[in-house]
């Protein structure tokens, strides 16, 4: 019996004993590599975003957020502190009193007046571990001249678009699904085919003329221009319709006996009973709206007050090619809500998409 079999065997005779075979090993190795490829860039971005700006600028590849200590030197002002390692191995805290050369002028922190020369290579930064919260707080609170990133405006716009669009989508898709699943009427097939047809029309080939339509409705440049055009989704209609078909007609008949109007049947019976499907559609809609990029880029780009978080982030990243620490921090801020949604609801999301098979 090999070691692996011995360690991983379970109770039972030899035939039914679970052995850790090469298949399992390959499977786990594949999964592990895959998860690393997925998680490492995200985590690396997160760890970089809590580093100080000098560490980010110098592309410090250490994981911990180390940053050089800066200290007020009496009579000189704030200076970065360096550790000077003398030839005998003793160390002293110094600051640079002149430009960095092969032999650099430095002075002890305690005795700022006595300047002496040391080789550049014997200096190393005096560091401490510090979470650079300013990367997050500066753009959000508009400190240190960072007033380009209107975080709360963008957040408000994003939340507004996401919430309103999701509510509208849920309501009108549920209405259409109710009509298609619970009524027999002339033209039902036609309507169904029309809705299927919209599935086959990719959004990017109607960009130009959709722009004309939205312009003539007068909602171009406003958030409604983003919300309305994609409010009716064929995916949502079909997802809800499939679910509503499973609701027994007897319930509806009973309600009609009690003289409930059709709208009340919809509202009081159909909606509560199809909550599982509605929640799946709600999650999908939130993801679509929160991550939407191309159409908001066309409709909202001219007015910064209407930018969503995604647009604001793009503009922000475009303005500074150098201020990586702010860009990374704001990327993490944009990433966090959707990550939290995912962590809480991943079971719903994964099963929901697997059942609809569409995105």
């Amino acid at each position: 019996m090999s070691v692996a079999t011995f360690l991983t065997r379970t109770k039972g005779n030899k035939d039914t004993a679970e052995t850790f075979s090469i298949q399992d090993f390959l499977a786990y190795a594949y999964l592990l590599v895959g998860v690393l490829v997925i998680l490492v860039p995200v985590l690396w971005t997160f760890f970089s975003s809590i580093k100080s700006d000098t560490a980010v600028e110098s592309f410090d590849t250490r994981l911990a957020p180390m940053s050089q200590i800066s200290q007020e030197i009496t009579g000189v002002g704030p200076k970065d502190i360096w550790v000077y390692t003398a030839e005998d191995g003793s160390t002293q805290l110094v600051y640079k009193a002149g430009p960095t050369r092969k032999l650099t002028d430095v002075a002890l922190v305690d005795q700022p007046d006595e300047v002496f020369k040391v080789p550049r290579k014997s200096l190393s930064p005096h560091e401490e571990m510090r979470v650079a919260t300013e990367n997050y707080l500066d753009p959000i609170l508009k400190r240190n001249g960072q007033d380009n990133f209107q975080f709360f405006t963008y957040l408000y716009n994003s939340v507004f678009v996401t919430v309103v669009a999701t509510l509208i989508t849920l309501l009108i898709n549920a209405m259409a699904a109710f009509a298609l699943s619970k009524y027999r009427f002339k033209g039902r097939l036609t309507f169904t085919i029309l809705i299927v047809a919209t599935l086959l029309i990719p959004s990017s080939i109607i960009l130009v003329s959709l722009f004309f339509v939205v312009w003539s409705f007068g909602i171009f440049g406003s958030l409604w221009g983003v919300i309305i055009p994609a409010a009716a989704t064929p995916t949502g209609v079909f997802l809800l319709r499939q679910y509503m078909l499973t609701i027994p007609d007897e319930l509806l008949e009973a309600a009609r006996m009690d003289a409930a109007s059709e709208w009340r049947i919809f509202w009081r019976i159909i909606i509560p009973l199809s909550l599982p499907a509605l929640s799946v559609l709600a999650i999908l809609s939130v993801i679509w709206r929160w991550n939407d990029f191309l159409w908001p880029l066309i409709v909202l780009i001219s007015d910064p007050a209407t930018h969503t978080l995604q647009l604001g982030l793009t503009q922000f990243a475009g303005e500074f090619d150098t201020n990586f620490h702010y860009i990374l921090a704001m990327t993490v801020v944009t990433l966090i809500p959707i990550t939290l949604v995912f962590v809480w609801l991943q079971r719903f999301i994964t099963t929901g998409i697997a059942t609809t098979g569409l995105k």
Partner: protein
Amino acid sequence: MTPAGFVVAFAALFWGLGGAIWLLKRRSYTLRQVPQFFMDLLGFPVELAQSVWGRGGVPYALLLPNMLIFGFFTFLPVILNFYVSFTGGASISLFDRPWVGWEKYGEIFNCESIFTPKTCTNPGYNFWTGMFNTLWFAAIQVPILCVVALITALVVNQNIKGRGFWRAMFFYPVMLSPVVIANIWNWVLHRKGALNASIGEAREAMTGLAGLSGFDMVATVLFAVILLIVSERTLRGNDGPSASWAGVFGALLALLVYWAQPLSLIGMGGFGWLGLALGAGLYWVVSSGQSAARLVVIGAGILCVALLLAIQFDSVFSFGRYRPINWLVTPNTGWPFFWLVFVFCWSHMGFYMLILLAGLQAIPRDLYEAAKMDATKPFRAFYRITLPLVMPTLTVVLVLSLIRSFQIFDEVYLLTGGGPGRETFMVVQNIYEVAFSNDHPDYGQAAAGSILMAVVIAVFTFFQLWITRRQSDL
């Protein structure tokens, strides 16, 4: 007043005021029923339709909002696209646009040959460059995406621990927005980013190792021992060699061939694919249960010994100094394109994996049990049971990912902006730039481009559906 403002004002008046009066006249509400009242008010048009036309009118009223939006924002633009493509000028008002006929299409097709976009006029050059880049992108990316998604779905579908966790992890990038994805990968692929840093460190470590005296010897012996164990495992089974071990053996063989570069002896260097082909061939021979499998494995083992003897480890480990490049900007290397394919697969694979997983889970278990009774090899079971039964789902995935990758815009626009030069310039970006990010927007040109693109997408979809139909007939 804009049309939208007018519509909104009218609707508010009719709906809010008229609806309230109408409802209050018919029904009485107590104070506790205020929410009920507002709910009824929301559905006032439906209620009105029911009282005017009876129950038969209700479905139409229910469908109305959805159909209005589909009509105005999906079907109308499709028709309008044709009209816009026949008009010129930069006017946004549809009626001010002069009719130019086929001129916009003519500009796109004004080439000596559309297969060499350089011979075209400017609009044609941009369009056809974008089109061929996109076709190339789809041709490379779709098969990779489908294969990786299928493998991942197969692995996750196995009886492994923490299935939900793995599934969720692979799905996580689908949730991220393109902007976030672009920023993350921009940060990783930067010239001084994490990727370059880790490659540089790995190279330094390897060079350091190679410099140790006796390392060549140890490495060769170690590799030989690993090969010995793996080949013994492969050949061990009573009923033919084991497929999984053969896979490991194939991977080692590929690595060895890559190191030894046997083709460089006859002056053909740089053939990294030879090892992959040999390894894959070995795996195929064993897993499909060919009768000569055992002989092939033994032959591969002899080949490995020869290669190991042939390897000059000194030359193998002489890594030069690593020069970091900016992966997304360096022209004429193909790297920007590679990373686009990679990032696109990275961010979308989880979604297609889920669909395939649903397809895999729909396959009845007893089929596999029956196959096990008949002592069918796993590979044969995969080829004869899994693949045919998952084929419909795989086709859906193929069509979806093809249409999806044909419309790629966000990731490219944010990561490379179409550059370097026009290497990653895609057709949707062409449409976007012609119509929206241009000082002289040419909507007609963009509309003509989108119609040509729609034609290509339609051809692809129908071709694929036709192939599937043929397959299911067989």
